């Protein structure tokens, strides 16, 4: 909201330097986003009378103008056409610096010398109008040579651009800002009482008012004004509206806008003679009912929207005959718009239920100055002052206006006045302060909360009707505590770092995730962050065929679905780096991928209105994916990477097994890929990227791939860990035995190793596969696995006989259990 300082001064004697005021406003939670100084730099601008206007030969966009600015006639070249001889216009003489920083010099165009510049409202930062000159004819006190600031009564002003938080509808107006600021500065605040003498007939004789939907519109008031002369607003009003960022339209609409900006109460003026029947009726919209709003758009009302809570319960304003003429609290209809012919105005001022306005505004995707205020909650008892003020303002520019006597006032159930019992101790307990009861009363009083001592340390606090954010007890105590803290100053509250007995820490899964990252970094891999939101076909490119979960309202088509794999993202990241000549790289990512909802991740147990009628959350799996694209990387390097991570996490019993028959692993090379299993549970996959997939991403060469499901990996019950106990290191020499065992292809090497390990018993220190041979000398379908067995005893050097016996036991076990033949 743009807030001119002069407007605030209507309500309180606010002084002090601008920086200090900004600091005070910020500290009150009225965040100043910007400060603009207006009217500065107008000191040299004078009023000039146009004496002569003549064409310049060969120029059709500029003319020669001679003006009287109080001295000798001056010749000026001007490009505007909205004035004529005798008009009064603003002149910036040579040497003036305009508000925008432009310096006026003497220039010659087409042989005519220009001794200054005639200015538009925009050039002087006085209005938005840049189409022609700011014509000052008819302005009292304007005459040749008079400074424009004197002619227009302009004081240099400061405009604060303030963000008012959503819970402070009371502060969303000039008076509200002034109230808070005055309290902080310790100066008196007062709202002048508007004075209007009704001279017209009783309002009942001119119009009617009825409310059929009091739950939507708990208060409707109607006033009527006759003998109105529709025309421009007085300059002071137009100027304030302009400074506040609103365009002046005519004195009736301007008065309504001015009142809204000043007091926070939206009102709506109708041309009484254009209503089908004189008067207003407020009711629920009928399904499918339409209205053309002031912006010329036809709106359909009364139909449920697609979104949550969009029930289609809309509140409409009708004329007394029931024809819709406005969307309650949001937008007026075009049919009863104020025009230059209007002479009688019906002024609607109402209080609408905030949730009704919010709902319709959301359903129709229609937000206006009025709806934004009503949905936050206006003051149902601020209406009378607002309509009085409207009449007062309109009388300034339309002195013959006759205000009808009385107000039509239809009231339903309004919020009861709230009186909160505020214990000083409760405030101090919540804030960590040591405020006295009188101090609290002294803070709340000036911002409109009347405090009455009820008992020692207890106040009865009257919540003003313009503070809908302050709720009944028990919540209201927190709301009042915020007001105390805010007016006291957050920065003055003593800070204290709390402590407690419970230790902090990471969970085992969180520690494991960090160790996985460390292991991957140790393998030379760099972590990337690829998109969670992808194109529909993205995952299918890497063999994930199930349909992805769609986003109902994506920002772009290629970000409209939830990813099911990190493979596509990593391949793209690799491609991008290869394009930039960084080819030999290893990349990894740790993050969530999404899958079909599974019952059990229920949303239904705590429903509320948003709980979800039988819908379940998508499954989320946290994966660590590694793409190996350094020189020489392939599926074997992926196996080595798994080994390294397994060692880091002390994983026990992981198995690498080929894909099941006919079930290729998505995106992976059909004959160079494997599943990673713990028992029967899949923990991940590894291997090489399918060359066709790599080609599709424009990438050449072998690419290793390792993908682990961290959620499963973290579960020790599923993936056991190696024994944490150490074994003592023997001081005695060890003996190595190499065994080449011929086994059938389907028998996995790691199972052979396990059998050897079990047979070797306590004295076997390690079993290492060191060679695999297929080819001449062996039957097809069989290969030779060469293991090195290292034996060692803790208390002696093993004899050859002992080692021989152990060797024999190992060979025998491998033969019996695995069908292995010693080569």
């Amino acid at each position, binding site marked *: 909201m743009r807030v001119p300082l002069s407007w605030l001064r209507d309500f309180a004697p606010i002084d002090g330097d601008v920086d200090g005021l900004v600091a005070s406003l910020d500290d009150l939670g009225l965040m100043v986003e910007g400060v603009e100084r207006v009217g500065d730099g107008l000191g040299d601008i004078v009023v000039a009378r146009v004496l002569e206007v003549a064409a310049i030969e060969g120029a059709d966009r500029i003319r020669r103008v001679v003006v009287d600015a109080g001295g000798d006639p001056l010749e000026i070249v001007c490009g505007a056409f909205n004035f004529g001889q005798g008009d009064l216009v603003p002149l910036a003489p040579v040497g003036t610096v305009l508000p925008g920083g432009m310096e006026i010099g003497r220039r010659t165009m087409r042989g005519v010398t220009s001794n200054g510049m005639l200015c538009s409202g925009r050039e002087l930062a006085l209005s938005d109008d840049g189409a022609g000159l700011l014509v000052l004819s008819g302005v009292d006190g304007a005459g040749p040579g008079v400074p424009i600031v004197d002619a227009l009564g302009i004081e240099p002003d400061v405009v604060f651009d303030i963000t008012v938080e959503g819970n402070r509808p009371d502060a969303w107006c000039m008076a509200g800002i002034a109230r808070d600021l005055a309290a902080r500065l310790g100066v008196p605040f007062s709202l002048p009482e508007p004075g209007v003498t009704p001279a017209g007939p009783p309002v009942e004789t001119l119009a009617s008012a009825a409310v059929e939907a009091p739950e939507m519109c708990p208060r409707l008031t109607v006033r009527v004004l006759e003998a109105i002369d529709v025309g421009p607003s007085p300059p002071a009003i137009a100027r304030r509206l302009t400074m506040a960022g609103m365009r002046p339209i005519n004195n009736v609409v301007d008065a309504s806008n001015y009142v809204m900006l000043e007091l926070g109460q939206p009102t709506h003026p109708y041309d009484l003679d254009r209503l089908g029947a004189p008067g207003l009726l407020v009711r629920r919209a009928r399904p499918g009912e339409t209205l053309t709003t002031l912006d010329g758009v036809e709106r359909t009302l009364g139909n449920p929207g697609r979104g949550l809570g969009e029930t289609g319960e809309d509140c409409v304003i009708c004329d007394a005959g029931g024809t819709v003429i406005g969307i309650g609290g949001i937008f007026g209809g075009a049919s009863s718009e104020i025009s230059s012919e209007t002479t009688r105005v019906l002024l609607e001022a109402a209080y609408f239920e905030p949730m009704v306005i919010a709902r319709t505004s959301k359903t129709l995707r229609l937000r206006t100055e009025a709806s934004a205020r009503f949905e936050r909650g206006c003051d149902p008892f601020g209406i009378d002052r607002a309509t009085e003020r409207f009449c007062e303002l309109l009388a300034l520019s339309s002195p013959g206006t006759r205000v009808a006597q009385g107000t039509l006032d239809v009231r339903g159930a309004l919020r009861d006045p709230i009186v909160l019992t505020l214990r000083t101790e409760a405030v101090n307990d919540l*804030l960590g302060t040591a405020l006295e009861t009188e101090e609290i009363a002294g803070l709340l009083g000036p911002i409109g909360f009347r405090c009455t001592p009820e008992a020692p340390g207890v106040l009865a606090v009257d919540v003003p009707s313009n503070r809908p954010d302050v709720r009944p007890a028990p919540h209201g105590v927190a709301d009042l505590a915020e007001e105390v803290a805010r007016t006291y100053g957050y920065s003055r509250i003593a800070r204290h*770092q*709390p402590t407690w007995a419970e230790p902090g820490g990471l*969970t085992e899964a*969180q520690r494991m995730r960090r160790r996985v990252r460390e292991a991957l970094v*140790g393998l030379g891999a*760099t972590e990337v962050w690829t998109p969670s939101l992808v194109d529909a076909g993205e995952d299918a490119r890497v063999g994930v065929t199930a349909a992805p*979960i769609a986003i109902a309202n994506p920002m772009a088509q290629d970000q409209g679905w939830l990813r099911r794999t990190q493979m596509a993202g990593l391949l793209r990241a690799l491609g991008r780096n290869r394009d930039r000549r960084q080819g030999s790289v290893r990349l990894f990512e740790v993050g969530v991928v999404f899958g079909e909802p599974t019952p059990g991740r229920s949303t239904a147990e705590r429903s509320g209105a948003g709980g*979800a009628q039988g819908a379940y959350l998508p499954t989320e799996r946290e994966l660590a994916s590694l793409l190996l694209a350094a020189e020489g990387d392939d599926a074997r390097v992926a196996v080595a990477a798994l080994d390294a991570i397994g060692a880091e996490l002390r994983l026990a019993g992981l198995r690498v097994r080929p894909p099941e028959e006919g079930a290729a692993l998505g995106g992976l090379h059909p004959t160079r890929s494997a599943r990673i299993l713990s028992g029967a549970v899949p923990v991940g996959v590894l291997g090489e990227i399918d060359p066709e997939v790599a080609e599709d991403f424009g990438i050449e060469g072998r690419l290793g791939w390792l993908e682990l499901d961290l959620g499963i990996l973290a579960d020790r019950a599923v993936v056991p860990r190696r024994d944490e106990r150490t074994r003592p290191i023997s001081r005695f020499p060890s003996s190595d035995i190499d065994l080449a065992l011929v086994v059938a292809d389907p028998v996995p090497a790691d199972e052979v190793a396990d059998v050897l390990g079990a047979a070797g018993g306590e004295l076997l220190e390690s079993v290492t596969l060191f060679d695999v041979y297929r080819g001449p000398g062996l039957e097809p379908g069989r290969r030779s696995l060469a293991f090195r067995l290292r034996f060692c005893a803790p208390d002696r050097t093993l004899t050859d006989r002992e080692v021989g016996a152990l060797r024999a036991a190992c060979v025998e076990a491998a033969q019996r259990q695995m069908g292995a033949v010693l080569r």
Partner: protein
Amino acid sequence: MTNARPLDLDALESTAERVLRAATSTAELAEAETAALGKRSELAGAHRTLGALDESERRRVGRELHELRERMESLAAALRLELQAKERSAALEADRLDLSEVVVADLRSPIVRGRTHPVTQSRDALEDVFVAMGFKVAEGPEAETDWYNFEALNMPPSHPARGMYDSFFLELGEPETIVLRTHTSPVQIRLMEAAVAAGTLPIHAVAPGRCFRRDTADASHLPVFHQVEGLVVDRKITFGDLAGTIEAFTTAYFGPEVHSRLRPSYFPFTEPSAEYDITCTICLGAGCRTCSNTGWLELGGCGMVDPAVFMACGIDPAEWSGFAFGFGIDRCAQMRHQIPDMRALVENDLRFLAQF
């Protein structure tokens, strides 16, 4: 009228087909196609004899020849697909590697070290700061129900404050009931519900994680971003405790010369609410372009847990009090490393990532 030898179309076709079918590889097939259908093929020769026929005959035979050629071409295409598939599976077969018997010791070990992502580094560093202050680290799902993301946080449907969070909704269930979480605050609700169910109050936890908002990416915003949430629910927790906690982690993470300040603000799930700023990390408070000469940078929001939120979770606000706070991890990384454009974080260019 010339006496041309009548064309034997059947013989022509069976020869061409035999030639094509004899190919055993895509390379051979290419040769076979040249032989059977190319310029020097019998078929092409047959075309050249057409000129000698009378017009009606020429049309008939010409059409038949044309159909014959089309049949042969589609046969060749089918054969090519077959052979390609065969060759691919043969190539894959020749490539076969049993990954259960890789001799790991034969592989070179890397001599370079990688890097974790700057966001990970910031997240870990923040977690460490909070763990040292006595916080546990919690997590929650990235897709949430309306209840957790909004309603339990004192934002019923149509609440105007929902407008502050421009949400992505999923095509699941009723419209707008499942949302990609717009903040980490739903983890507050999950923590409180779980603690009430298990009888394990108090809570002292932070919850880092990924969030989503329909914001166009620019130098300081990403539509997918990371936040860390803090929640303390205990007895006698005060606003002063909140301010002290924020000051403590600010100084611990950004360094002793960086401090914090709280300004009144509004969040439906906290009361009183505040935004907090930290000393501008560029000018250390002197005033510069980055901080618009204020000396401060906005970091996050915080406040005392609203009684309505406690009640939604089944916690008695008369017995327990607490505070919550949240701020952007990516933004912390950006401030700490003075990253001019946040979009660099998702570009995945190693020249950028290698600097952390």
